[in-house]
């Protein structure tokens, strides 16, 4: 079925079939209708036959009377007729008869027929002469034969009645089948509308691309022309002739085909979604809508004050026109006065409103240092402007206080760390000196080793603290330059080659062939990688693989670090990025607990994102940056 809808021969065959089916179905339908009508009206076939016969006998009676009166040879003229004739005069004397009692009779009908004055043309050897014949009156009885031939209309009709009533069920079935087949073909044609072999989707042919309303008008015009032609033929009295009937039949078929074409075109248009779109009306409406939109945009773009002035001007002008039209000098004067007083007032209000609007927009966009000039504002507007200014002042003070406190915090941490560093220097130096001495026992040597280790850790902690504070407050110079992540990964791998080897960790790098660049500060980015790799060396399960993947996806660069944690990570990824939080609750290993926090702050300072995913023992860090296109 699906393939057939794309085949042109199938479509042509379907159109041909549907036409034939239409004709046959109409025929079967007519027969079925006749059968049903007869049986409803008459009940049995016999009664129906009798009724039909009687109506014809009445008509034939008139003809017989005429012929008899004119002295025609009834015997030869009516020898083949389906009825027998008895002609009587008004006194019931039989004047002529061919009644045969042996012939079975269906029914009889008697009609009293008078013959009017009538011109009669007698053909004589001398020429023709016309005389008017006087009136006569006869009782004509016609006996319809039970067994009829098809020489006249009555015979035809009776046989039709017989056929239709006898085969009523067959015709009904045929008609229903015909309708069904017709519908199937119609559905097939509707399905195949717009399909074409060798191309997917809906293909509109040239006629389907004609705007739908024009298309419809074309068909309506065609119908109109046809109607006019038919009425011309009708009034000319040409109906009834064989040629006219043939013509009408051909016309009917042509009409049906045109209608089919029209409907199929609608189907194709609906499928392609262009039924309403592809109409002249739609185009006109769309154009009108666009023009209206453009006008609306234009109006919106007119500055507020000008808009107000425009409205005032229009109202004033309308008033003026109305006053002039009414020829009322008083209202003209009033209008002028109104314009002179109200105009400037409304203008002033509009100007004030504009100032307030601009001021509020400035505050909304974060400009907290340019108050609204309320010195030349009107009453309530001035108060409103002053309120806005005090909101701005409050906001500005709050922001300033916040910034001050941040700055103070960073400064405090920096100063404290400087102050810690001086005693720390002494400690480190003297520990070094102790190490150079002959130490009395192994125990003392162990103690000195602890001092050495812990002082080194204290040094790292103070450095990290300052850095974390600066990174989180953004108090750090960030110089964004194109940075080649592939190079940085290679450098990182080189820097960490030995430390990874010590833990028997195997680093698996994967990156695209072409260079991947982002906008970043190389030193800060190295610090991020440094912190992450240092964590991996500290916390990864020895003798496992560490994966570092560099991926690009839709303008994003993702750097993914994956490793297997040595100890279970029963901590959320968000918590891990907090300051001083470490995965190992025992805090036995080296490190400040600031590494991830610093890394995240630094990544964010470079407009990137850092996420941590923990899945069982799999520890995954994802850095995301916007890719820099070459």
């Amino acid at each position: 079925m699906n393939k057939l809808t794309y085949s042109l021969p199938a479509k042509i065959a379907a159109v041909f079939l549907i036409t034939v089916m239409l004709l046959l179905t109409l025929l079967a339908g007519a027969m079925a209708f006749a059968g049903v009508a007869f049986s409803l009206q008459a009940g049995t076939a016999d009664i129906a036959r009798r009724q039909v016969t009687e109506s014809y006998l009445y008509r034939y009676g008139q003809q017989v009377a005429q012929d008899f009166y004119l002295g025609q040879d009834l015997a030869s003229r009516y020898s083949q007729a389906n009825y027998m004739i008895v002609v009587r005069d008004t006194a019931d004397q039989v004047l002529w008869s061919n009644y045969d009692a042996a012939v079975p009779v269906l029914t009889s009908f008697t009609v009293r027929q008078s013959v009017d004055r009538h011109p009669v043309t007698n053909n004589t050897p001398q020429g023709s002469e016309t005389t008017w014949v006087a009136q006569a009156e006869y009782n004509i009885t016609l006996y319809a034969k039970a067994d009829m031939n098809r020489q006249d209309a009555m015979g035809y009709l009776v046989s039709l009645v017989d056929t239709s009533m006898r085969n009523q069920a067959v015709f009904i079935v045929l008609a229903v089948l015909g309708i069904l087949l017709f519908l199937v073909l119609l559905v097939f044609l509707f399905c195949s509308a717009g399909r074409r072999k060798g191309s997917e989707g809906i293909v509109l042919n040239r006629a389907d691309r004609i705007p739908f309303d024009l298309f419809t008008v074309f068909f309506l015009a065609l119908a109109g022309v046809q109607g006019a032609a038919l009425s011309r033929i009708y009034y000319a009295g040409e109906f009834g002739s064989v040629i006219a009937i043939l013509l009408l039949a051909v016309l009917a078929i042509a009409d049906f085909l045109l209608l089919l074409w029209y409907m199929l075109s609608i189907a194709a248009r609906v499928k392609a979604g262009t039924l309403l779109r592809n109409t002249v009306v739609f185009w006109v409406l769309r154009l009108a809508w666009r023009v209206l939109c453009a006008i609306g945009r234009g109006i919106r773009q007119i500055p507020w004050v000008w808009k107000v002035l425009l409205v005032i001007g229009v109202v004033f002008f309308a008033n003026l026109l109305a006053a002039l039209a009414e020829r009322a000098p008083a209202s003209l004067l009033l209008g002028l006065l109104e314009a002179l007083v109200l105009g400037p007032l409304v203008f002033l209000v509009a100007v004030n409103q504009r100032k307030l609007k601009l001021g509020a927009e400035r505050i909304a966009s974060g400009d907290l240092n340019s108050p609204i000039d309320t010195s030349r504002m009107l009453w309530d507007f001035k108060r409103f402007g002053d309120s806005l200014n005090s909101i701005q002042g409050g906001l500005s003070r709050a922001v300033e206080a916040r910034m001050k406190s941040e700055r103070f915090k960073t400064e405090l941490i920096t100063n404290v760390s400087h102050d810690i560093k001086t005693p720390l220097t002494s400690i480190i130096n003297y520990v070094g000196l102790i190490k150079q001495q002959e130490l009395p026992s192994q125990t003392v040597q162990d103690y000195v080793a602890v001092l050495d280790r812990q002082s080194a850790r204290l040094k790292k902690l103070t450095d990290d603290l300052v850095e974390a504070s600066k990174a989180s407050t953004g108090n750090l110079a960030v110089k964004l330059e194109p940075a080649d992540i592939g190079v940085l990964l290679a450098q990182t791998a080189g820097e960490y080659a030995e430390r990874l080897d010590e833990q028997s960790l195997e680093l698996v790098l994967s990156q695209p062939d072409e260079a991947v660049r982002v906008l970043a500060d190389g030193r800060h980015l190295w610090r991020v990688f440094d912190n992450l790799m240092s964590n991996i060396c500290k916390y990864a399960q020895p003798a496992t693989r560490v994966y570092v993947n560099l991926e690009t996806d839709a303008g994003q660069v993702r750097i993914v670090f994956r490793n297997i944690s040595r100890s279970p990570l029963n901590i959320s990824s968000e918590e891990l990025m907090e300051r001083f939080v470490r995965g190992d609750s025992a805090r036995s290993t080296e490190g400040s607990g600031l590494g991830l926090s610093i890394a995240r702050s630094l990544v964010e300072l470079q407009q990137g994102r850092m996420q941590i995913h923990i899945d069982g023992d799999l520890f995954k860090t994802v850095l995301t940056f916007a890719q820099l296109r070459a």
Partner: protein
Amino acid sequence: MPNILICDDEPDIVSALQIYLQAEGYTTLTARTGREALRLAADNDIHLILLDIMMPEMDGITALAKLRETCNVPVILLTAKSEDTDKVLGLNIGADDYITKPFNPVEVLARVKSQLRRYLTLGSRPAREDNPTHYAVGSLELDDKGKLVLLDGEPVSLTPTEFEILKLLMQHAGEVLSPRDIYRRVWNGEPYGAESTVAVHIRHLREKIEINPAEPRLLKVVWAQGYKLDGEKRP
């Protein structure tokens, strides 16, 4: 032996440094303020000054600026300020090196020795004749013919690969070379993901020619770009 002036307001640090330096055979003088340091420097024959920045009366930066008006003795700044801006300021005013607190005494000794060598031994060395097989950048010298590298006049032992990398970097002193460039020129082939090999060799090289490899002064890492040898090419 060279005379070294130690200037810090923290007596514990001063005496610790004294112990380390005297153990190496240096004569030491001490000062507690910048003013005192200036006076001592004027009165004595000083060969090197270790100068703290944050001190009472006169801070290290001011003292350094004053000192530079009259003499060019090597000055190493000892500072608790680890900001880049502080280091840059100190170097611009005229310091020859800087060490951040808390420092490792071993590093201080190494830097002191390096500065003294440059000041006493190498500074007066006459310029060599133009020689394409001989390169000199900062305190580094490389002789391609003799496969010899000298750092402050002392020979450094390098593997052949490290030697080639250093030669390339010295030829392009001041330029940033990406790991790929270095691989192509030293290995004569495409790296195909082997750039980290270069990074490993550079790291070893740094450990050999830098006093503190974590804070290189010569062979610098330009993160996400490449590597460069800092300094001017000398004849």
